[in-house]
């Protein structure tokens, strides 16, 4: 997968491909989106087009693998029938080889397909987990626009379900003034019961371009951030660079 520079292809001969192009294939883009999503404490922008393209690619690959397999089964059947009658036809073997369906190729295709599907599913799964965890916070912040349409529906349902669950088991049985799901009590000035992502958690990251001197923490000297060096920073200090795609998380 790492070198599947032709997207669909098996990626042999990727040495000839310019690395800057190899970095922008959908597979690489999806991997990057997946890694960022996995490492970031908050939910990131949903990659609509990338997910759409990846899904189309998965469909195409599934069809390819299926076709190869059909050739197999056809071949298998042919061998069985012909061997039964002691009439083994050599053309069948030739046909088979011309179609290029040898077991190795198919299994490599299958592998490529499996990995792609894993990436895609895992990407969507990580997002769902974050959505469930921080649904209320997301719905009240600008992060809401980062969700896909389906994710927004899912988030709404999750919020309603959780609210109903907590309401009927705890909140409705508490005295008046303490029944809010958002506030500890009626005298709290702001929402102090809503789980929020910890933005000051540390993340490993690499920059694609030199960022120059960066103020990483309050009261510390600015740090010169170079390209392709691995750093360990507070997430919030590089948050804007992750959003703009200049910094990748690991």
């Amino acid at each position, binding site marked *: 997968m790492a070198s599947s520079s032709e997207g669909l292809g098996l990626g042999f001969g990727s040495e000839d491909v310019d690395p800057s192009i190899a970095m922008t294939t959908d597979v690489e883009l999806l991997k990057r989106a997946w890694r960022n999503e996995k490492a970031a404490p908050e939910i990131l922008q949903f990659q609509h087009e990338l997910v759409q393209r990846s*899904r189309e690619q998965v469909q195409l690959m599934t069809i390819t693998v299926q076709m190869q*397999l059909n050739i*197999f089964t056809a071949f298998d059947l042919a061998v069985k029938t012909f061997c039964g009658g002691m009439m083994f036809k050599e053309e069948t073997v030739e046909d088979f080889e011309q179609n290029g369906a040898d077991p190795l190729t198919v*299994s490599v295709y*299958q*592998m490529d397909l*499996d*990995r792609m*599907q*894993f990436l*895609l*599913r*895992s990407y*969507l*799964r990580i997002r*769902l987990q974050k959505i*469930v*965890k921080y649904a209320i916070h997301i719905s009240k912040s600008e992060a809401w626009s980062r969700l896909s349409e*389906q*994710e927004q*529906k*899912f988030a709404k*349902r*999750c919020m309603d*379900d*959780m609210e*109903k*669950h*907590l309401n*009927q*088991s*705890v909140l409705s*049985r*508490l*005295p*008046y003034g*303490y029944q809010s799901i958002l506030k*500890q*009590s009626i*005298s709290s000035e702001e929402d102090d*019961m809503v*789980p929020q992502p910890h933005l000051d958690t540390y993340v490993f990251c690499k920059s694609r371009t030199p960022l120059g001197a960066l103020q990483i923490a309050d009261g510390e000297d600015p740090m010169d951030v170079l390209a392709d060096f691995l750093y360990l920073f507070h997430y919030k200090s590089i948050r804007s660079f992750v959003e703009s795609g200049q910094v990748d998380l690991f």
Partner: protein
Amino acid sequence: MYGRRASQLLKELSTCEPGQLTSFNTDVFDQVLKECNAHHLELQSLMRKIQEEELDVQTTKNAEHFGAVIHHLSLMRNKRCLMAYMYNRAQIIQSLRWKLGPVLPQEIQEKLNFSEEEYFKNYSAALESYASELELDLTVDMVPPKDPYIKVRVLDDIGDVLLSDQSPNLARHSIHFLKRTDAEQFISQGLMEELLG
């Protein structure tokens, strides 16, 4: 001591194996709720007293005032503990949906209270409707695939089945080398186990 029972609930959560559920502790849970209401009564009577004496709430810090504050804070703490208990259990329930599928085994079902059972069903339905909108089953492929084929042991008599590339006889205790995608459905139904290493 105020708030001790509530912290018992949370201790129970933190001492049990991560990802495992203990039976819902209705007993202690209800006691804590009762404690909350008792705090509230005390709080109200103290507040009345303060009002009756017509003292300025902002400036006088008498015994009633501090008593009220203690009851108020204890109540809030109890609320936080109860919410944390429910919320953390709900998170485990969510992870069970991913691991075990839409139907919980009887022995786990018994550990949930009625609201939690309902929550599990609702969460499961929300997940399913998301998956069907995307036309993508998200509960498969939970670990990164290493090889298209895996070694499995059959746990129950399944018999002859037609798989995408072979039609093996899946007798109990037999070991097969199957396509991961074929084997996954059997593994999730508990009919097979993957042999690792």
